[in-house]
């Protein structure tokens, strides 16, 4: 099919490159277009008006606009994993090889089975679904809802992974100018010439805004040429960044704007190494909103047929794209701008058969049949407009055959971006439209220029663009040079509001969601008159266009019904984004394995060489176990690591524990206040277990802290709380006790730290370190600075496993060498590396608490550590830990649990119930917090929190896991399963 509706280039060349042809397919049919086309302009050039189906009634639809406000012409662009549902054909830039499909129809766009809904429209009124489908109750999920869900939705998302990449970026500027129409360009020229850092962003692929769609003359040049020259000058300024194909989608606090740059959407696929889109965060000192205005329709019976368009869109297709949507067209208007459409179209050789002008007193337009005081009452044409019915001023009706109808109800300034900041728009009677609140509507002052501010002429746009730039520059201390604005048209807005043609049965307001005047009447009848009720009940303005062409119209109809003015009726709040944004762009590079950063331990490389299994612990990857070739089950590896450690020696990378150096003459006092127990009395060269509470008295964290020198301590925290503890200590230091002489620095990543545990721990380490570490020289809980082959190091004699154990720390960059050295030295002892699983087994065997017990709702008393909370000094959490609900003797206590029959398996998370009692919450006495298989004992063991647990040792209970249907007899025992007297660790 050839481009039957392309206007002769001599009459309207448009801004498409007719010397080149682009091939594309829509619904499997091949078409041709030109560079500069959108999918919509190219389809219209090929005589295709039908591009989609509406949401509810599945009415045939074509585009009503030539821009991003489009509610109807939504297609699935591309195919396969790159398929993009709901793409507006009116802004999809044509490229060679483009494919698109129509959506929300079956089996085809021309014949859609669900258009039966249109026949049944009298049942499907606004909110009908709230009133039915209630009986029988079970039918909702099984019958009604599946049918509704299948019918609803628009396009289809392919379930494959998006193959394209997306970037995020940050930009800073003095002045951000949003929109590159006449106002934006004028503002950019003024701001750019002053030397200010300027960003000019426009959603279109061609800057110039309406200048590209009009026949205006600016000075001596056509509007489009003036825009081209302005863009060329701006491009030559190093302080100006031009961002075409970039939609500013959201206004955020303090001058921050979000913007999407469609880097590759105009290509078949992104160039290698290029993202599909980039999401920019733009930090601006001042912003100038020059986003223009959107034309609005008038509602009348059957005003939604393909071929019925906004009048300004009809002329944009003719002027910019050289496309006549129809050979015979009519215009329906309530304002002078509609007449301009008629004039432009006629000049392009289009047969304008009539102007239906609702104003009886409009100035008569010569040369075209101008029917004043007339309205369109109905239309015909099943899949595209074929005729309109006109009611003349005298009441006579006439049908006129046309292919296209341009409708103009006036222009609405784009208030969305200020609305994002909840600045209420202001109604302006003279243009019968809302304008942005303007001035300081946001927190970084925002200026509004051009049509966006209600100055709808080209002259007004240039003047206000220049003026707002001047004000912004003045704010920022830049000198604005005098500007040389070209002469331009300055037509006044001449408009008599007409919102809908009365008497119509179904006159569409929100075309995508099929909201009609009738629906608004029903909402009024049922008292859904508040603007938000209207919106939510009828779904007005909730489609993918957020009601850009429909909201004001809907308000106007409701205002008529209630007898209020439009501003009294209210405004709906536009929300970000301005136009829908691909989730890929907002997700950026944070996908797959790159979702969050990896933190690797110093022994990671070595462990990987050994074939270790790693596990995610926050952002850390820790060695979970290190399997040997003969081991097929993870338990075999873990059991071996545990037994080998308890028999001889094991090594574990504990670098992930938080490490904080605390120095100053008040370091001891400071620690006394942040720990529940006392540290100022700790001897130099010793370490102590510390229990840290939150101010609410719950246990926050635990770890050992060593006194390395009189005024120098080294604190360790749990892996999970390393960051939070450091933040808390800084809070205490800076906010609570600002004059204490104490300094903090996190050294978690400065030291590689290894636990060396087991009866041969000392023998192994003595081979590595330079100092004597005999029990006499380095007793239990000793700490000190040592050297390893001359390298500075730290040694702590502490134990989490219950064995004779040390933790040795070397500067992180020596961590890899250290693990290799330790393993080499340990060879004679059959040293093993043990991972987090074996670590967990040994700490449960020993009865030490860890993450599952440090759950943020446990007190020291719950953990059996109540005596550690000193009342002789003030410390964080000391007072509130004494509240009655937290200091009950019969409250939860940490206990040990073992199966009565050693062969029985247990599950962590099982609840403890009294023997013989029903499985109800009344009999729920506690739960298993941590569970391991003890290779040492040969059965499962668990830690548990149990009500009144301190007094229930020896009791037989049931560990019940209702999720798996298990119910196991267990005995409550001490949590210290091995070596309760601690003989091993002192060995």
């Amino acid at each position, binding site marked *: 099919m050839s481009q039957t509706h392309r206007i002769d280039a001599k009459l309207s060349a448009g801004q498409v490159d007719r010397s080149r042809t682009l091939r594309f397919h829509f619904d499997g049919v091949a078409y041709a277009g030109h560079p500069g086309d959108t999918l919509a302009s190219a389809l219209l050039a090929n005589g295709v008006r039908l591009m989609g189906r509406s949401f509810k009634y599945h009415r045939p639809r074509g585009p009503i606009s030539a821009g991003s406000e489009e509610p109807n012409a939504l297609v699935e662009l591309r195919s396969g994993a790159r398929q993009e*549902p*709901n793409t507006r054909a009116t802004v999809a830039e044509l490229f060679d090889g483009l494919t698109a499909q129509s959506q929300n129809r079956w089996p085809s766009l021309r014949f859609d089975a669900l258009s039966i809904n249109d026949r049944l429209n009298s*049942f499907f009124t606004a909110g*009908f679904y*709230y*009133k*039915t*489908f*209630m*009986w029988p*109750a079970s039918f*909702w*999920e099984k019958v009604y809802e599946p049918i509704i869900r*299948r019918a*609803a*939705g*628009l*396009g289809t*998302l*392919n379930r494959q992974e*998006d193959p394209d990449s997306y970037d995020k970026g940050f930009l800073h500027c003095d002045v951000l100018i949003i929109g590159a129409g006449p106002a934006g360009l004028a503002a950019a020229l003024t701001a750019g010439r002053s030397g200010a850092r300027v960003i000019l962003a426009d959603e279109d692929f061609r800057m110039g805004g309406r200048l590209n769609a009009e026949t205006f003359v600016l000075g001596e040049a056509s509007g489009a040429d003036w825009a081209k020259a302005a863009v060329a000058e701006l491009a030559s300024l190093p302080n100006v960044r031009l961002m075409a194909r970039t939609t500013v989608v959201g206004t*955020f606090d303090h001058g*921050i704007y979000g913007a999407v740059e469609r880097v590759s959407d105009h290509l078949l696929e992104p160039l290698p190494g290029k993202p599909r889109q980039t999401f920019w965060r733009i930090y601006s000192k001042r912003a100038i909103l020059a986003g223009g205005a959107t034309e609005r329709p008038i509602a009348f019976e059957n005003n939604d047929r393909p071929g019925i368009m906004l009048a300004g869109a009809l002329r944009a297709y003719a002027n910019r794209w050289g496309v006549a949507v129809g050979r015979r067209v009519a215009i329906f208007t309530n304002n002078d701008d509609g007449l301009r459409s008629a004039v432009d179209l006629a000049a392009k050789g289009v047969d304008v058969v009539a102007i239906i002008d609702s104003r009886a007193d409009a100035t008569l337009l010569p040369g075209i049949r101008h029917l004043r005081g007339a309205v369109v009452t109905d239309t015909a044409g099943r899949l595209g407009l074929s005729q309109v019915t006109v009611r003349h001023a005298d009441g006579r009706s006439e049908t006129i055959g046309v292919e296209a109808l341009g409708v103009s109800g006036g222009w609405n300034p784009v208030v969305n971006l200020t609305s994002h900041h*909840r600045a209420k728009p202001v109604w302006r009677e003279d243009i019968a439209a809302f304008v942005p609140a303007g001035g300081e509507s946001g927190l970084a002052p925002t200026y509004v220029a051009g049509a966006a501010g209600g100055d709808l002429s080209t002259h007004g746009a240039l003047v206000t663009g220049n003026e707002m730039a001047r004000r912004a520059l003045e704010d920022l201390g830049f000198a604005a040079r005098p500007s040389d604005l070209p002469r331009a048209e300055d037509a006044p807005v001449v408009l008599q509001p007409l919102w809908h043609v009365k008497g119509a049965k179904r006159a569409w307001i929100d075309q995508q969601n099929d909201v009609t005047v009738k629906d608004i009447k029903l909402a009024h009848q*049922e*008292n859904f008159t*508040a603007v*938000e009720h209207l919106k*939510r*009940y009828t779904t007005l303005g909730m489609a993918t266009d957020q009601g850009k062409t429909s909201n004001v119209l809907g308000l106007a109809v409701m205002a008529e019904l209630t007898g209020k003015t439009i501003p009294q009726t209210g405004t709906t709040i536009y*929300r970000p984004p301005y136009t*829908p944004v*691909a*989730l*890929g762009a*907002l997700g*950026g590079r*944070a*996908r*797959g*394995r*790159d*979702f969050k950063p990896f933190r690797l331990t110093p022994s990671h490389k070595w462990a990987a060489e050994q074939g270790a299994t790693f596990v*995610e612990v926050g952002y850390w990857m820790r060695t979970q176990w290190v399997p040997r070739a003969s081991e097929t089950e993870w338990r075999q590896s873990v059991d071996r690591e545990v037994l080998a450690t308890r028999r001889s020696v094991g090594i574990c990378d504990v670098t992930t524990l938080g490490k904080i150096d605390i120095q100053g003459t008040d370091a001891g006092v400071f620690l006394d206040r942040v720990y529940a127990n006392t540290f100022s009395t700790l001897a130099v060269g010793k370490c102590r277990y510390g229990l840290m509470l*939150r101010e609410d008295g719950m246990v926050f964290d635990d770890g050992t802290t060593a006194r390395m020198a009189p005024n120098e301590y080294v604190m360790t925290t749990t892996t999970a709380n390393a960051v939070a503890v450091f933040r808390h200590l800084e809070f205490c230091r800076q906010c609570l006790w600002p004059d204490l002489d104490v300094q903090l620095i996190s050294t978690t990543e400065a030291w590689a730290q290894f636990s060396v545990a087991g009866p041969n721990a000392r023998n192994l380490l003595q081979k590595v370190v330079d100092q004597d570490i005999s029990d006499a020289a380095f007793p239990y809980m000793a700490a000190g600075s040592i050297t390893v082959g001359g390298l500075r190091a730290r040694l702590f004699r502490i134990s989490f496993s219950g064995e004779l154990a040390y933790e040795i720390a070397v500067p992180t960059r020596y961590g890899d060498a250290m693990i290799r050295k330790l393993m080499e030295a340990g060879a004679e002892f059959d040293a093993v590396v043990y991972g987090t699983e074996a670590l967990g087994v040994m700490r449960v065997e020993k009865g030490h608490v860890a993450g599952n017990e440090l*759950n943020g*709702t446990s007190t020291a008393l719950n953990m059996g550590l109540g005596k550690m909370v000193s009342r002789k000094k003030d410390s964080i959490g000391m007072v509130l830990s004494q*509240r009655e*609900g937290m200091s009950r003797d019969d409250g939860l206590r940490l206990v040990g649990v073992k199966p009565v029959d050693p062969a029985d398996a247990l599950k*962590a*998370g*099982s609840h403890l119930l009294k023997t013989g009692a029903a499985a*109800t*919450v009344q009999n*729920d006495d506690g*739960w298993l917090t*941590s569970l391991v298989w003890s290779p040492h004992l040969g059965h499962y063991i668990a830690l548990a929190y149990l009500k009144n647990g301190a007094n229930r040792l020896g009791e037989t209970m049931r560990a019940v*896991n*209702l*999720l798996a249907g298990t119910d196991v007899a267990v005995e409550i025992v001490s949590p210290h399963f091995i070596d309760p007297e601690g003989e091993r660790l002192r060995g």
Partner: protein
Amino acid sequence: MRYSGFRILKEALTGHKGWTPAWRDPEPQASYDYVIVGGGGHGLATAYYLAKEFRQARIAVLEKGYLGGGNVGRNTTIIRSNYLLDGNEPFYEFSLKLWEGLEQDFNYNAMVSQRGIINLIHTDAARDAATRRGNAMILNGADAELLNRDQVKAMYPFLNFDDARFPIKGALMQRRGGTVRHDAVAWGYARGADSRGVDLIQNCEVTGMRIENGRILGVETSRGFIGAKKVGVAVAGSSSRVMAHAGMRLPIESHVLQAFVSEGLKPLIDGVMTFGAGHFYVSQSDKGGLVFGGDIDGYNSYAQRGNLPVIEDVIEGGMALMPMLGRARLLRAWGGIMDMSMDGSPIIDRTPVEGLYFNGGWCYGGFKATPASGWCFAHLLARDEPHPTATAYRFDRFLKGLMIDEKGQGATPNLH
């Protein structure tokens, strides 16, 4: 007027002339027995149950804006009773049971849809916690299942199982969880309350409280003084502002929570899903939009709008979980004011002022609680004693050390 399919048929054939207003717009009377401050979900439900279940009369609901304009109209519509702690789970299970019969009860199709909710599990510790929680749910009479990785994959094969930073190891599922059409909840309760004689008074802001000798006499409003024997406040994010009229400081901060919806898509996600390793949860509405959310922005705010860091954080979570989402588009982001309490759990209690009652501190979980919150608050107002499932929701739990802290974060509201 009773709604039914038959009624729609009849109206369709007679030009829809018979539909009557869903509620009246009465002028406020000089005084009432009960004044409920706040015409959101909880306030409307309270009035409805006061009238219907507790047979009380002379009730008014005062709403500063429009009915259902608070969080009931701007949430992600999820219902569930998958709580852990004894203070919470019976209450939320009561709520879920009320949801299950709600539409027939108030004769309004709120589209209560029990399509199941899953909480994904990514670590062994999370599985242990899910086991404990699932057992607590069942012990309280709720339903719970622990799914393994393959069961999750069978349900949602398009999740990222192969290339994930935090692998999916299973899920805790509650099949009775699901979604509800949020606005319809407010409207159903409003209509039901109105038809039982409750005066729903919109555009009526409470500007003060008249308290004498420790007893409330009524409220000052933008439409004049309204006397009341009992005043119940259920104003969510505005709790601190309203209770300040009674000289009370609350254990509550107001924070902004953003929520999101995509463009309409053909059916993709059947139930509700939460991604524990990221800040992301999602369901798909009957209209086809993916409804999703994540963390609160984290700073005190009454602005009903948020900022980019959280928007990006949430969607990064979505992309990590479902890499296919790249080509779906975000349609709208909006913000609501959350009454974040100091332990993440609500308060339904008397106050030191006789006749003044408070319901708030719902954090971002208030929607699912709507029916039980209304019922329990009505119970407290009518009988002056707490409903059995809401006995723990007292002000003095903080003084007594009886916090109900599901997340174990302590008195830092933005972490709940």
